[in-house]
Structure formats: structure tokens, C-alpha cells
């Protein structure tokens, strides 16, 4: 069993790593990582904008985004992917590459989920911080940028991380619209071997686990660093912060 997996890995590692490239489109793990990184990098700022729109006093901003969030939350991701894949070319007549379709859908979907996390972080801070910022003469956006968001995002690191990890896992759904990612490559391997699906998909699972775990690990370190900084390096409280497990570790793994 282990030998089978090592053999599969030795024979197909390049396909799993970069897909058909350079003879075909870039695929495999490389494409999964690129798709994940782009989705997260775009969904995160989008989610902050959506959260600000959701708590805005202007209805023109608040209502459309609220509708978008509710619709997105109420529809399976797979359905959204199929819609974008079949409807966008029909409506616009443009030939959109499946990678772009997948990326856009993921950004909107995860952006909507993340925006609720960010909004909760902002709301849970209470009025005191915004009052203090206003009283000192800060503009609304200045207060958000320098006072509210740094705290809200820090408090929400576990939930934000959770969404990042699920974004990475959701890239696998690109399989249904032929995005040449890691899952697609594994399925090609499986189609060639035919007799070893368990081994092939176990390799796939291990790789995804390793990626998601590293993200958790990194966020965990980041959170500890901030906690230590805020407790002031050295002194009793810093020691306390070090002894206390970061909240991510227990919640995510």
C-alpha cells in the first residue's frame, strides 16, 4: 500500500505538481496554489469593502450587498460555479476561461462569507472605540483604517483563517468545470491506473491536508506574535501569553 503510493508518486509527481505544463495549461498543485492564493488575496479586501457597505448608513450601499450576502449564503457553491460557467458566456458572449470563472465565483462566495466575519468583528468592538476616534477628530474611514479594523481583524483571526482554509478546499470544485488543478491531475492519474483509486486519492488528501495545516500553523504564529507584542515583551503577562495556547490551535485542528 505504502509502496504503491510511493510508486505512484514517483511516476506521476510532475503531473501532480504542474499538470500538462509546458505541453498544456499549467495545472496540478501549482495551479491549486495559484488559484487559492489569488482567491484569498482578492476575497479578503473584497470582504472588508462588503462589510463596510453592510454597516453603512447609506441604503444604496447597504441593500445590494446585503442581498448579495444572503443569496450567496443560501445557494451551494457548486450551483454558483455552474451558473457562472454556463450563464456568463451565454449572456456576455465572451469565452471566459474556466480558471477565471472559478476565481471570480470563489472571490464572491468567500468574500460574502468573510464579510460577515469582518462585520461581526467590527460590531463586537462596541461603540467606545469609534466614539473615541470621532472625538479626536478622525474621519470615519481613518478611524476604520487605523483603529477599528486592526482590532476587529485581529479578534477574528480564527474565523478568518477558517474561511481561508475552506477557500483552499473549495478550489477542488473547479474539477466540475475542468479547471486543471490538483484534484483534476489526481483524477487523470486515477484514470490511467484504474486499479488504485484509494492510493491516488489518499495522496490527494495528504497534500491538501499539508497545505491547510501550514496555513493554520502560520496564522497561529502570527496571532501569538501579536498577542505577545500587545502584552509587552518581557514581564509577567508576556509569559502568560506564551503559556496560553493560541486560540487557533484548539479551534482549527
Amino acid at each position, binding site marked *: 500500500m505504502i509502496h504503491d503510493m510511493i510508486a505512484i508518486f514517483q511516476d506521476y509527481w510532475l503531473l501532480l505538481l504542474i499538470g500538462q505544463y509546458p505541453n498544456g495549461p499549467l495545472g496540478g498543485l501549482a495551479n491549486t496554489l495559484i488559484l487559492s492564493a489569488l482567491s484569498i488575496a482578492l476575497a479578503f479586501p473584497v470582504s472588508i469593502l462588503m462589510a463596510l457597505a453592510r454597516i453603512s448608513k447609506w441604503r444604496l450601499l447597504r441593500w445590494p450587498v446585503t442581498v448579495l450576502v444572503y443569496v450567496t449564503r443560501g445557494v451551494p457553491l457548486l450551483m454558483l460555479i455552474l451558473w457562472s460557467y454556463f450563464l456568463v458566456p451565454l449572456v456576455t458572449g465572451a469565452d471566459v476561461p474556466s480558471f477565471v470563472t472559478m476565481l471570480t465565483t470563489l472571490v464572491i462566495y468567500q468574500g460574502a462569507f468573510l464579510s460577515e466575519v469582518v462585520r461581526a468583528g467590527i460590531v463586537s468592538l462596541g461603540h467606545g472605540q469609534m466614539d473615541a476616534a470621532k*472625538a*479626536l*477628530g478622525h474621519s470615519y474611514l*481613518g478611524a476604520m483604517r487605523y483603529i477599528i479594523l486592526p482590532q476587529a481583524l485581529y479578534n477574528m483571526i480564527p474565523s478568518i483563517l477558517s474561511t481561508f482554509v475552506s477557500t483552499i478546499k473549495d478550489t477542488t470544485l473547479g474539477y466540475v468545470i475542468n479547471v486543471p488543478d490538483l484534484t483534476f491531475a489526481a483524477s487523470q492519474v486515477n484514470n490511467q491506473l484504474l486499479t488504485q483509486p484509494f492510493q491516488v486519492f489518499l495522496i490527494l488528501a495528504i497534500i491538501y491536508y499539508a497545505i491547510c495545516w501550514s496555513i493554520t500553523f502560520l496564522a497561529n504564529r502570527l496571532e501569538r506574535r501579536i498577542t505577545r507584542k500587545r502584552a509587552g515583551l518581557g514581564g509577567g503577562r508576556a509569559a502568560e501569553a506564551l503559556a496560553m495556547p493560541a486560540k487557533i490551535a484548539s479551534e482549527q485542528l
Partner: protein
Amino acid sequence: MTGTASPQDPTAIRISNVSKTYGTYQVLKEIDAEVARGEVVVVCGPSGSGKSTLIRTINRLEEINSGSILFDGQNIHAPMKTSALNQLRSRIGFVFQSFNLFPHLSVVENVSMSPIRVKGVPAHKAHDKALLLLDRVGLADKAFSYPGQLSGGQQQRVAIARALAMEPPVMLFDEPTSALDPEMVGEVLAVMKSLAAEGMTMLCVTHEMGFARDVADRIWFIDAGRILEMATPEEFFSNPKHPRAQRFLADLRH
């Protein structure tokens, strides 16, 4: 930092006919009052009387339903661009009951950040100024601590330094010692007393009657949304005129 509109005007804050309702409940009823430049006014009264609401309307953290509040000759409740409102607010210092320090910033950053971001003061100048102000409130050694490491009294002194960093001509205090342990009240009041001694215009909502007696030029007694009595501390404590104020003082003595 004197007013642009009328620097000669002896009135720092003029509250005219201010009313405010929450739904059907009227919190402030046709309030008329003035704070002169350099004057220290203590606002007292039973809880729920509208003291905090009144002081929060002065820098427009609360909106009012009618009337006007003039600060340096400008009505802070007039329709205006938010940038104009921010500019006015930056010149009114405000100290909260619950301190509201920024927990993600060190003490010196708490004090220097607003001059940098709001007034465009160069960072090194704001930093030096912040250290001076921290020294003045007796916390120079805590400059690089974080708010979470300080006691309540220390946090409130940082909050006062943070407000002073904007060089406001007027300081408002909203029950600055009510959230403190009794042994920490004194250190905050000492800072406020030294400010008053330097001629700062101050409006303080507080239950510290000792402070009112020693420092205030005038006391406003407020109940059920109305200012019932305006008097000097001597008059107010020895010979309160309004029956409600007499009852309030009698209750305090128990």
C-alpha cells in the same frame, strides 16, 4: 489654538435651547447654558438625569432635536461637511468614563497617533510631544507599555494625555473617575486639578463633590433633562435653592 471665528468672545461653549428625545422620552429639555473661557464647570445630578447625554451633544457624539451649541462661534449641530465636523471635534478634548484607549497601540502611540493622522504633525514631533504629555500626567515610564498592562487610573491619565495632544482649547470629561477603584480616583483628579490651575476651559460630569467644591467655578445641577440650578460651589453646597438639589445633597451625605 484660539478660535478662528471670534477669539475675543469670552464664551467658549454656548448651549441654546437644546432639546433631545429618544423616541418619546425627552432626555434634554430646552437647555440654556454657557461656559466661559477658562471656566471650570462641574455638571452633577442623579443618574439618568441627562448629564452624559448633554456633554456628548457638545462634540456631537449625540445628535440633538432642536437648539444649537456654539463652540468658538460655530454651531456644531449645523448641517456641515463631515470634514468640517471632524475639524471642530479635533479641537474639543473628550475623556470617557471607560477610557476607550486603543488597545492595539502602545501608550505613546495612543497619544501621538491623532496629531499625526488628523493634524498632520510630523511623527517625530508628535512622539516627543506625547512623551512630554505622558511625563506631565506622571506616566513617562509607561510610554512603551500597552493599555492592557495599566491600571484603570493610569489608563485614564493616558486618555487625558491623548486628548491634550490635540491641543484643544476646551476639555470635556464624562464621569472620568466613575469606572475607577477608589484608590485610583485621586491620581486622575490631581491631573484634572492641575489642568484647571493652568486655565483650561473644562466641563466635567462627575460625582466627585470634593473636586467640585475645590476646583469648580460653577456647578450645574441637572435633573430630568433640565438644569435646575447654576451656582458657585459655595452657594450650591451651603445653600442649594432648588428642593431637588437639596434632596440630592442630603442623599450624598448619607
